[in-house]
């Protein structure tokens, strides 16, 4: 049995650097999001996507030539995973909608293996975008209510600040690198919300416990203590999660690639934010021991006065 050595890192004292760092990332993210935007997949824009497998290596120029003869507009052809597989993307077309994929399959000839066809009508895409935004909003509201109910409103605001921080930065990286943003990435971002929150709640739980169990009232000391006590757990969980995500990223196949990437980014950012952002936020909002005492006792104390 080893003697336990809780690290004594002054996280809170260095928060000014963290705040500058976070603000910088957020500004860059928002800048990129407003200039480049996100590269939305057909799930959101509507359009047609075909994944086609060939027996041998295929020349993209040939495929492009075949498709441009048919006068499709907004055609994008690229390799997908290997040079034997290609991905064809088309904008919503003027000729017809659902028949488009059949036409392309016909144009490509018989010796190809149609691995995947996705067609999303413009209206469906629009709805998915709205629903996705709403899903994120409702998830945040649900979490806000639960945390406010279980802890205190400052904790709720702190955790939401951390979540918004994580989401903006993850989206920002997707925008900067122009990685395709599809439905699965949206799911990943919602999972990041869940994960980051998990992390934040563990830290908050400890902060509350320490506030209530010690005589210290200096919030800086208490928060620092809690962060150090939970540090090894925070890192351990991040590492195990990152391990499986790396497995998913490298072995899960192309379809799951951006999903795994979004989670990888999100877990790293989420771990950082639960250490720095969430606790800085509650400190800035002025948390104190009094705020955390159970309210029933207060009421009772008042009632018992002569």
């Amino acid at each position: 049995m080893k003697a336990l050595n809780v690290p004594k890192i002054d996280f809170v004292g260095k928060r000014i650097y963290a705040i500058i760092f976070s603000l910088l990332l957020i500004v860059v993210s928002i800048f990129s999001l407003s200039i480049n935007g996100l590269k939305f997949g057909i799930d959101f824009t509507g359009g047609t996507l075909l994944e086609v497998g060939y027996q041998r290596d295929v020349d993209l120029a040939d495929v492009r030539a075949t498709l441009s003869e048919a006068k499709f507009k907004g055609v994008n052809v690229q390799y997908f995973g290997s040079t034997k597989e290609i991905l064809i993307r088309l904008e919503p077309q003027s000729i017809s909608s659902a028949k488009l994929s059949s036409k392309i399959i016909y144009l490509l000839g018989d010796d190809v293996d149609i691995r995947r066809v996705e067609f999303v009508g413009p209206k469906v895409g629009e709805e998915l975008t709205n629903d996705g935004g709403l899903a994120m909003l409702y998830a945040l509201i649900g979490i806000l209510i639960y945390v406010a109910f279980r802890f205190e409103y400052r904790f709720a605001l702190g955790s939401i600040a951390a979540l918004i921080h994580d989401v903006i930065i993850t989206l920002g990286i997707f925008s900067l690198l122009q990685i395709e943003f599809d439905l699965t990435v949206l799911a990943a971002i919602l999972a990041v919300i869940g994960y980051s929150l998990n992390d934040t709640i563990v830290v908050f739980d400890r902060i509350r416990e320490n506030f209530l169990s010690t005589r210290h009232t200096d919030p800086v000391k208490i928060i620092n203590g809690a962060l150090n006590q939970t540090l090894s757990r925070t890192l351990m969980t991040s590492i195990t999660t990152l391990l499986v995500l790396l497995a998913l990223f490298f072995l899960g196949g192309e379809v799951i690639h951006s999903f795994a990437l979004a989670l990888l980014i999100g877990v790293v950012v989420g771990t950082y934010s639960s250490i720095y952002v969430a606790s800085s936020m509650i400190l800035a909002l002025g948390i104190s021991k009094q705020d955390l005492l159970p309210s029933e006792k207060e009421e009772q104390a008042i009632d018992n006065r002569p």
Partner: protein
Amino acid sequence: MNQYSSLKNALIAFFLLLSVLYALPNIFGSDLAVQVSSAGDKLIAKSDLDKITDTLKSKGVNYKSAALSNRRILVRFDDNASQLSAKDTLKTALGRNYVVALNLAPSVPLWLSNLGGKAMSLGLDLRGGVHFLLEVDMHAVMAVSIDKHYNELRTLLRAERLYKSIKKEDERIVIRLKTADSKDRALKIISSELSDLVVLESNNKDELSIHLVISDSAKRDAKKNALKQNITTLRNRVNELGVAEPIIQQQGLERIVVQLPGVQDTARAKEILGAVATLEFRMVDEKNDPQTAIRSGRVPIGSKLYYFKDGRPLLLKNRVIATGENITGAASGVDQESSTPMVNITLDSIGGRAMLDTTKKYLHHRMAVVFIENKVETITKNGKTIKKRTTTKDIINAATIQGTFSSRFQITGIDSGRAARNLSLLLRAGSLSAPIEIIEERTIGPSLGADNIAKGVLSVIVGFMLVLIFMVMRYRVFGLVANIALTFNLVMIVAALSLLQATLTLPGIAGIVLTVGMAVDANVLIFERIKEELGLNSNIQEAISSGYDKAILTIADANITTLIAALVLFGFGTGPIKGFAITLSIGIITSMFTAIIVSRAIINKIYGGKKTKELSI
């Protein structure tokens, strides 16, 4: 201290055994099979099973087993070739009252399936197949509804000679009347006979007019009926296509989801699902010349101009002898004389009688068959999306009536054998009550499906192994305990998914992988807490106990918030997101059980109540 009662231990063991049992069906793989089910109301019986086995034996097709369960017969095969030849053989032998389809049947042992054990149901992205989202053109439904009410109203009011004029304006009917008295009477008739119509009181400057719209409840009913009727028709068509385990479901108020596992020919599936085709039988107007009508621009009263597919015009009488609705049977074939494709038609009694009367009266006249197709498409033009509605009416043939006939006859003059097959299928399955449009399609080829499974399983295994190794390195014996808990967690997720028959998709597998990573969190929390307690307090038993106790609240808080996120995902998500949310939610719940209770039970067995000096943590 630190001992569970034997009852509690027994309960835990029971739960774990149960989950192992229900996860078990997934390891048996599946057989190539042909599935036979009933296309109509008739139930599949034991006699059908005998007929199938006899047919296969007589044709020399080898099969592994054949069994009747869940109102369907599954015939299993060892190889692909006999599966395919069996499908063709059975399709011809059994006829139209049965759906014969290729399928993959899980080869779960009988004792296990008797206990309710089922393998997980795989999503289309894992097994291959087509997913369509269809939207019913409710605009057309309303137009039909307005038409119907307009006609009824006109007939009623005409009987009493009440109106000056009556016409349709968009979604309303406007009646102009002669006198205030006739207005009152008209209103009375409307309220007593046509309760679905609502009188618009406002902006009614003209005293002698009535503006009517269809009531909201009637509109709702019309839409609901159209959707229901379309679902029935689609189900018939899918049955005709021969698909094992299709899903045809309403989604929202205007949409229908159709999932066809294993279907590869999407072009045909689309053609068949989307077609709103029907037939009309009309007499040719032999007295007038179509060319004259075109030149003068005046079509004779009682007739209308129609065209053949190649553009030849013909004048047809307005009166319809019979329509597709009167058709009870249709089968494609080849005309013996001309050796061209044809469709054999059987009419119901009403259609048959009308046909008999007509053919008697108009012997040696020509009768035309008109093919009517309604389509709706969303297209993007100059950046704007518009709905394009088209109705095509083509004459497929116009033949001289050689003799009287009633309910059984043939239609010839069809382009190709494929067109004849599609036409007969559509006539059999019934027509859609309103045009539908495919607004979303997702097709996954079988090779990609198999690929996705292989990659998904590989990443689960590798991720899982990495976590196992890491946990043992960090927490030794406790790490080992966490690993056992984690393994049970995986088993429980699989068991839960199998029991719920929730569909496993690739994002679902990703959810499992993520759960594996996050599930150890609970154990990490507990173990770190125990370590801390050991630092504060030298009593090992107390350290374990308070480590667990103190961590549990944190774990619950953290997991409940994640569960909220997962439930929101489930509520809002469609297909792929839902799959992810399901496995994530199940994973969170099972991980609480395994990480807290199962791991505690094992730790108790190892250290509980013993005088241990050191913990291997």
